[in-house]
Structures are given as C-alpha cells and as structure tokens.
C-alpha cells in the first residue's frame, strides 16, 4: 500500500484531498436554524448557557432542549434563543472594555478596613 504518513493524532485522521470513496454528490440541504439553550438547574439560580441545538421553531427548540440537555435532571426551566439574535462584544475591545475596572478596587468590600468588633457588614 502506498500511504504517505503524515502526522496523525488519535481522533484527527488526515483527510485525502483526492477523490472521495463515494460517488454521491456533496449536497447540503436547508437545515434547521441554530438555537442557544439556557437552563435553570434549580429554583433560585440563574439560567446558564448549556449549549446549542437545531430546531425548526421556538416550541420545538424548547422541547429539543428538554430532550437533549435535561436527560439527567439537569434543569427545571429552559430558555432558548435563535443564535443569530445574539450580539456579542468584540474580543478586540477587551482591553478598553474590561481593564479600566481593574483599578476600581474601592468597589470591593475588602477595600475597607473596619474594626474587628464589627463582625458582619
């Protein structure tokens, strides 16, 4: 067998660039939209991002989330939102967005020196 050995890690098999073994044309159909799923794991906690999935509409997305993400009692409440509606901050802005708060240490309770007699404040 004539095989060129390239670096091949477990779980990452090199793909040939030549013809594929199947003659089937590589067709892609119109998929269901992508949704982000948020789950409240128990009463009193925030909804937390659990992952994403595909669904044709919101009702189906909620049910799919129930079937996919709560198989082991992970949640009691589900939010879904179509992924395209999520706007995210730009990582390039990270410095100006987040670093200026680094020196506002007076926002943290530990900044204040209080006499030991005051136990809880």
């Amino acid at each position: 067998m004539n095989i060129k050995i390239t670096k091949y890690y477990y779980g990452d098999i090199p793909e040939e660039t030549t013809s594929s073994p199947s003659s089937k044309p590589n067709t892609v159909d119109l998929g269901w939209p992508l949704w982000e799923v948020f789950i409240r794991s128990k009463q009193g906690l925030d909804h937390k991002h659990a992952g994403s999935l595909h669904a044709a509409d919101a009702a189906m997305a909620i049910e799919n989330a129930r079937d996919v993400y709560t198989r082991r009692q992970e949640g009691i409440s589900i939010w879904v939102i179509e992924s395209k509606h999520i706007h995210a901050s730009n990582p390039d802005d990270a410095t100006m967005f987040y670093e200026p708060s680094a020196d506002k240490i007076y926002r943290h309770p530990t900044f204040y020196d209080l006499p030991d007699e005051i136990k809880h404040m």
Partner: protein
Amino acid sequence: MFLQEAEKTFQEKIDSEIKIEPKDWMPEAFRKTNLRQISQHAHSEIVGMLPEGNWISRAPSLKRKAILIAKVQDEAGHGLYLYSAAETLGMSREQMVADLNSGKAKYSSIFNYPTLTWADMGAVGWLVDGAAILNQVMLCRTSYGPYARAMVRICKEESFHQRQGFEILLILSKGSKAQREMCQDAINRWWWPSLMMFGPKDSESTNSDQSIKWKIKRKTNDELRQQFVDMIAEQIKLLGMTLPDKDLKWNDKTKHYDFGEINWDEFWNVVKGNGPCNKDRLIARNKAHDEGAWVREAAIAFAEKRKSNINTKAA
C-alpha cells in the same frame, strides 16, 4: 507584521493556559485543525451509534435493553454537542453531515468493525469506550473553549458507558461455558482494533507537533496507548480472560506493560475504507439522512407558515 504579532499573542495565551474562544483571533491552521478534529469526533459518535444500535432489538433482558438504548442515545447527544462546538468555527452542521455522508470526512475506524455477538456490547463499552475516555479526559483541557466545554459535559455522561461494558463482560465471565467463550471471543476481536484507535506510532510521524504546541492535544498517540494497555492489562485479570497478545508482559524497568506489534496494514486499510463495515455504515447514515429530508423540510415550511400567520394577524 500584524500576523506575526497576532500569532505571538495567540501562542502566549495558549502557553498561559487561556482558552481560545470562537470570536478570538486564531491562526487559520488552528481553526482548521480544530474543525477537522471536532467534526471527526462528532461523526465518530454518530457512526458509533450503529454497531451498538445493532443489538438494541436483541438485548437479552429488559434492563440491558434500556441501558443500551440510553447509551446509544447518549452518543447522539455527544455528537450533537460536538457538532455545536464545531459550528462555532464557521461550518454548518449540514455541511459537516454532507461531508460525512459523501465519504469525504473521516470518523474513527473502530466503528467499521461488526458487532457479532452480545458480548461485543461489553467489549465495545469496556475497550472502545475505555480508549475513547482516555482521549476525552485529556481533551477536557484542550485549548479551544467550546471543544473543552463539550468534552467536560461528555465525560460526565460517559462515565457509565465503560462501567456498563465491563459489567456485561463480568457477568458473561462468570456465566456458562458458552458465555465465557463469547466473552473471550469478543475481547479477542476488539483488542487490536482498540489499540489502533490511538493512531500511528509517534516514531512514524515526520511533522512537527503543532497540535501539542497549540495544546489541542496534550499527550501523544503512544502515551495514550500505553496508558490504555496498562489499564486494561490489569482490569482483565478481574475477568479471568486473556488479551490476545503473546508479547504482553509487565516490564519492571519501564514500569509499563510491553505489548506486541499492531497490524498497521489492517489499520491503514480500514482507514482507507476497506474495513468490514465501512460501506454499511455510510449506507445507513445516508439512508437516515435522505429519508429524513422531507421531515426536515416540512418542519421548516410549517415554522415559516406559522410565522407569516402571526405577522398577518399583527398587521
């Protein structure tokens, strides 16, 4: 100039164990390698449902049937998490599925072996999942955030898979003569393919270790394989069975088990599509996908209709 700067910052992040997130800048090759690896991992979960699904209808007790179904279903879930992680790198799931179905994309060759007896459900759980788990535990710390998070979730769920496999074999190993033979036979057939799962030997590769440098991978193929052999060689004692390798023995110097040479010719042949089940697996995936097309279309058409109904009502 910018590129060099960006690559340097990127590598610094990796070196200080900061995860890379979807919107962060990343070298094109990093994106591609992750995309290829994550999607292959997803495909492996999906194709991996077939050999085990093969025994759902014949599971020998209702309890075993329920466990097996839950396990195969978990694999669907894991495929789904992984496809989602891969989608953050800019390829749609439909495209990935199309690549799998056309034969362009790869998946783990282990699933091109047939499941011939019930004992295979045990051997697959113990050996195949056992091998996969070593990889997956390592990947929980991989440098691409969405992949690492998917792996954490998967590892949590996966923990019962290997145990149920071992339990199946344990019961067979204590059973009748026929059951013990079935058990040994399954181990014989699955042992070498499981070792092959870890990929070619480190010494056979010529490329630089880019995946290690980028912390996509944290262990080499041989390291993982050795870890696996050491683990299984101990566990098999509890089954009172043997591994089909006359060269397998404890090496007091290395503190590891030595083992025999893998049949690399077989390995490459299965990768190339000549395994016993390569064709069947693709046929099954294509059939499910093609026969599901009208269902997916109808759901979209229905959703559109309802949306426009609401719009006309509102107007």
